[in-house]
């Protein structure tokens, strides 16, 4: 497993991926450049560009050889089952992910959902953090201090989410929208996606509100559509080749707000949950392919 990961890292470095959203001029892509030169105008923007196709081929091969996310699934499983924290209890015996104590399988694709014990709609990562605080006795402030992976550090909650997500692989997204609590948060999330503010007047929908647009060469999924929302939530939690880190949707939402020129959303906050509720419910019915690899 470790060897595979090292190999994967080496390949990823060799592949020299560009950032997901090109805020700066991306690295030259000879194949894409040559292909694009032949077109006078960007006639069919829905078509995947050469770089995207190349990446998808590479990703398929990489997953065949051993998905780097599996390492974090294994670490997360151990964390899930071990008695830990000031209260010395395991999450396996105390943390209900919505389908009853002890059930992990199938829970990821049914979150965000409403948890009566917390009185809140929560996405998977937020629920895990809530359990770590309420059941195991960890301090919320400590968990929020460095919530996302950096160079050689991966937070425990990232591994835990990856483990939980892995047990929903090949299952269909089924966010319980019939629950009025969930529906309410979904509607609020829709408004968050609409909200234009900041120095550049951007909202989520400036980039992700219609089909078939690009920033630079990067395709922009329309998160209001089933297909676009599916593209947006698939592959997370994901091993990101830019920086070689395991990252979650909580991180991804924050990075979108950064590029939107917004301030920082609170970790495991209502705002992030509402957006994830909107996006994931829009993907309802699509099959979740498990923790994956992202550019």
């Amino acid at each position, binding site marked *: 497993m470790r060897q595979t990961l090292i190999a994967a890292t080496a390949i990823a470095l060799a592949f020299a991926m560009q950032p997901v959203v*090109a805020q700066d001029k991306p690295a030259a892509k000879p194949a894409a450049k040559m292909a*694009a030169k032949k077109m006078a105008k960007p006639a069919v923007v829905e078509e995947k560009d050469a770089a995207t196709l190349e990446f998808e081929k590479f990703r398929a091969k990489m997953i065949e050889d051993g998905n780097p996310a599996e390492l974090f699934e294994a670490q997360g499983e151990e964390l899930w089952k071990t008695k830990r924290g000031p209260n010395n209890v395991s999450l396996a015996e105390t943390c209900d992910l919505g389908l009853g104590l002890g059930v992990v399988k199938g829970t990821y694709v049914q979150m965000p959902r409403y948890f009566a014990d917390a009185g809140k709609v929560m996405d998977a990562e937020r629920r895990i953090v809530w359990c770590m605080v309420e059941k195991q006795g960890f301090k919320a402030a400590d968990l929020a201090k460095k919530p996302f992976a950096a160079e050689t550090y991966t937070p425990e909650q990232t591994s835990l989410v990856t483990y939980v997500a892995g047990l929903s692989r090949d299952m269909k997204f089924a966010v319980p929208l019939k629950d009025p609590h969930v529906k309410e948060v979904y509607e609020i999330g829709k408004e968050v996606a609409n909200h234009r503010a900041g120095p550049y007047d951007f909202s989520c929908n400036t980039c992700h509100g219609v089909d078939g647009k690009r920033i630079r060469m990067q395709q922009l999924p329309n998160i209001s559509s089933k297909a676009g929302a599916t593209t947006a939530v698939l592959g997370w939690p994901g091993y990101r080749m830019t920086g070689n880190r395991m990252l979650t949707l909580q991180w991804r939402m924050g990075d979108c707000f950064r590029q939107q020129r917004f301030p920082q*959303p609170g970790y495991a906050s209502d705002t992030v949950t509402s957006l994830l509720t909107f996006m994931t419910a829009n993907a309802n019915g699509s099959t979740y392919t498990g923790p994956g690899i992202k550019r």
Partner: protein
Amino acid sequence: MNKRHQFSILAAIAATAAIAAAPAFADSSHRAKAMTMMKADFTTKGQATADRIYEDGLQAVCNRSGNHPPEKIAKQLEGDQMATVKYPADGKLMGDWKAGEKLAQSGRGFTWNDAPGSPAGGNCYNCHQIAPSESSFGTVGPSLFNFGKLRGNTAENQKYVYSKIYNAKSYNLCSEMPRFGHVGALGEKQIKDLVALLLDPESPVNK
């Protein structure tokens, strides 16, 4: 509340009231809840201060009308935006297209990890096709390839391009394009250079 927030606030309040009276706009109770929630959840990081969550008058109107305010209101507020455009004192609107091309490439500026006060890029290629040598361009905005060749390098067009970059909302109130001059992202010289990139007959855009 900074200057940006003060802009035409009275007109905006009037416009918002007019919109509230009209049906078929987004559910205001969910909007209100979203606003309260976001005000509580966002915190300052780097130069991205928490108050960026608050809308200015124009944003408030666009947000409450699904980016399609009634035409009368739109025209009036576009006029207010146009009034914010400051033209160069020397009357010259064309700069150096080469500097403009460099600026058009950069997408830097205003995020929480950009150094405060560091110059912002034009962000142009993120959304527009411009010079034919750059094939990595976005499609959120229209193609600007051959813009000057098609429209002509007239004084009128120079003024149009300058003011459009300075404040895109002067022409289309809820345009997706930022107000680069209005918010101080681009200065006079930089906007002139971008005008040249689009209109100068020597610019690769018009070859």
